[in-house]
């Protein structure tokens, strides 16, 4: 039974994505019978390449996606190198959960409310500069997309930080750091020369997932990105919702193009890895120690604090907006406050939170069960041939959502399953499971195998070893993976709306619908509400093991390892 779980899991990931891609590929080449497209043609491509500014959209997607990923990775690695094992590092670890619970769109709104010409920072400056109207410069929606990159970076840093944290203990970085220090290396250089080569393979997949996401992002790009022209994914969404249904053909070929852009971005990244790998090896052996790295260390801390601070301050401003009366520029605070909207939304809140759980809990539990099944199978059969195929689980993370979501909808409708809770959960699972796998696989594989061997030799059956030894030892990891999964399912807008045919009003479908009304108070309320469930999840992941194992000091060391 257990041995079939990896193949079942892979089918559940690959199946919907492939079905969705077929549903996108066919119209991209002119086939969509419902709109009269019955014979193959290249017209959609011709129409696409005739779109004004297409080249700029492509460059924006590609360059900004790569830039956002590179900046996030560099900041995370620099920060880990410079501050691992210090109080600053532990402070960041503590800030991690709340920041991870913030959906991308909420963080982007928070950032916009902070840095826009009418934003809070400008209001502070206005007090001294005496401005009575915002400066007319494009700080957000700037033509180069810098604000969008900033928005992506603030949200990707915590995710990559979480993934790196999981990889650190396996690479024994603390001990390595002691050794490099005694050899006279500066903290950062020692870390980059000795620890990074061991850590990088473990965080490579999360980095590629971030790259795929950043290259095809929609929500953050709509809020912070340029519009003349917009990055490709945003334009695809526009074409898909054009009243002229003939645009669907072109939108499909654009979705295929988007997939190619993501593949190109990954190619470029891997090429960079190769080059850096070779030059890095020479660098590691050249003996330079760079002992005076205080400036760089402080810079990395400042960057990390700015990134975390932007999200947190953005949230505070969202909170203020949610209770604001009329709030004119350049007032630092609203003239009066009102809880009226919170009170009005209160009735809706319960129902939409409940629906969110109705979808999220089964999706997360199924994901965790399947992932544990795959990993446990790995332990039992050793390094079998299935191990190599398991990366297929990550396909949904690497293929842009917009490239297969609409095909997926057709697929579910074809098999008569759309609108069912089952189908919505299944669709969520496609996005939740890879993240759960990402969070769980390293710690699971890193667990000392001798615990299991000892238990087996003590006469415990493999099943008992799993339930009574491995699972309890991984309590905190499993709960964290569940919280990550919960954050992912709560964030799903398109799959919930499209596959659920509007039958499932979750916190996010409500939030996105109300955000289209543009009232910043509603954006504030639902942005914060979207955080509630993931935050509760992360809080449980910290509290439950702490309570369960309050008399087991070894467990806190264990969950770090």
């Amino acid at each position, binding site marked *: 039974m257990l041995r079939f779980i990896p193949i079942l899991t892979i089918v559940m990931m690959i199946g919907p994505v492939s079905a969705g891609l077929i549903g996108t590929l066919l119209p991209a080449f002119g086939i969509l019978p419902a709109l009269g497209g019955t014979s193959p043609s290249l017209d959609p491509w011709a129409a696409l390449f005739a779109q004004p500014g297409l080249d700029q959209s492509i460059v924006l997607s590609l360059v900004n996606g790569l830039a956002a990923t590179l900046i996030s990775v560099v900041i995370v690695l620099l920060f880990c190198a410079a501050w691992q094992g210090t109080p600053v590092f532990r402070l960041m670890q503590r800030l991690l959960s709340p920041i991870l619970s913030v959906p991308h769109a909420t963080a982007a709104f928070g950032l916009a409310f902070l840095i826009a010409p009418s934003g809070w920072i400008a209001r502070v400056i206005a007090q001294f500069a005496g401005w009575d109207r915002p400066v007319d410069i494009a700080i957000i929606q700037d033509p180069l997309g810098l604000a969008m990159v900033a928005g992506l970076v603030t949200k990707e840093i915590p995710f990559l930080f979480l993934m790196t944290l999981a990889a650190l203990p396996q690479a024994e970085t603390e001990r390595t750091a002691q050794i490099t220090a005694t050899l006279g290396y500066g903290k950062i250089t020692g870390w980059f020369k000795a620890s990074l080569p061991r850590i990088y393979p473990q965080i490579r997949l999360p980095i590629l997932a971030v790259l795929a996401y950043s290259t095809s992002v929609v929500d953050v790009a709509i809020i912070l990105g340029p519009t003349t022209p917009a990055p490709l994914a945003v334009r695809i969404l526009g074409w898909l919702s054009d009243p002229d249904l003939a645009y669907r053909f072109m939108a499909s070929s654009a979705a295929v193009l988007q997939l190619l852009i993501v593949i190109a971005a990954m190619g470029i990244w891997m090429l960079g890895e190769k080059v850096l790998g070779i030059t890095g090896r020479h660098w590691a052996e050249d003996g330079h120690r760079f002992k005076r790295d205080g400036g760089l260390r402080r810079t990395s801390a400042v960057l990390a604090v700015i990134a975390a601070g932007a999200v947190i301050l953005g949230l505070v401003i969202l909170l203020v907006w949610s209770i604001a009366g009329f709030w004119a520029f350049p007032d630092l605070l609203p003239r009066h406050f009102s809880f009226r909207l919170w009170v009005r939304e209160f009735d809706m809140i319960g129902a939409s939170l409940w629906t969110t759980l109705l979808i999220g809990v089964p999706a997360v539990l199924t994901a965790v069960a399947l992932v544990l099944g795959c990993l446990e199978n790995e332990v039992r*059969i*050793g*390094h*079998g041939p299935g191990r190599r195929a398991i990366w297929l689980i990550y396909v949904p993370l690497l293929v842009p959502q917009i490239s297969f979501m609409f095909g997926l909808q057709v697929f579910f409708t074809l098999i008569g399953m759309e609108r069912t809770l089952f189908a919505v959960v299944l669709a969520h699972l496609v996005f939740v499971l890879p993240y759960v796998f990402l969070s769980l696989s390293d710690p699971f594989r890193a667990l*000392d*195998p*001798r*615990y*299991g*061997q*000892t*238990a*087996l*030799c*003590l*006469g*415990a*059956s*493999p099943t008992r070893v799993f339930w*009574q*030894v491995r699972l*309890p*030892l991984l*309590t905190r990891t499993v709960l964290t993976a569940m919280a990550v999964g919960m954050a992912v399912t709560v964030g799903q807008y398109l799959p919930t709306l499209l596959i659920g045919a509007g039958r499932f009003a979750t916190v996010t479908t409500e939030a996105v619908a109300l955000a289209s009304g543009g009232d910043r108070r509603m954006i504030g309320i639902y942005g914060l509400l979207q955080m509630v469930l993931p935050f509760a999840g992360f809080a449980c992941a910290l509290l439950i093991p702490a309570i369960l*194992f309050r*008399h*087991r*000091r*070894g*467990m806190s*060391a*264990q969950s770090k390892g």
Partner: protein
Amino acid sequence: MPTKGKTGLELRDVRIALDGRELVAVNLTIAPGEVVTLMGPSGSGKSSLLGHICGTLPAQFDISGQVLLDGVALDGLAPQDRHVGILFQDDLLFPHLSVGGNLAFALPSGVKGKANRREQVEQALISAGMDGFYNRDPATLSGGQRARVALMRVLLSEPCVLLLDEPFSKLDSELRGQIRSFVFDLARKNGLPTLMVTHDPEDGVAAGGRLIELS
């Protein structure tokens, strides 16, 4: 534990190879109550041999020969059905269970009754000189206490053979002597054929049994 009808552990021309390279080849019989020491440099496949006897060696190793325990072939049996007890250099006490919980984990399910099981565990603690430690967090024990609990845990699982994988290498020299005699005395008392791998010659001397050098 009775030794009647037991012939001990027999390794009949056991060879372990990885990627075509032979790691270890032994032909050896260990009588009940006998302690045999395998010496060899690291990488000589000592631990792989123990893993093979336990049945936890990953599939990519090539293995020939037979492992017999009291005349019964172990090859093909699941680890949990072999009655092979093993101690590593780390005590590997389960950090999520109490000291008593660790011991009770090892106690066979055939021992019925909550009170009865508790009693057996308490007895084991008394014989390890750790009366009253049932509810203690293993993380709060001293190194010597942990080693003793680890051994008691193996013995409670009623093994028919005891394997020791450099069990004393992490203990400081003062403790090492104590724990060595504690382990060997109990192994003999229980009539367990015992196979120890180590690279510390003193271990072999203290064991007082045959000493085999691997190349």
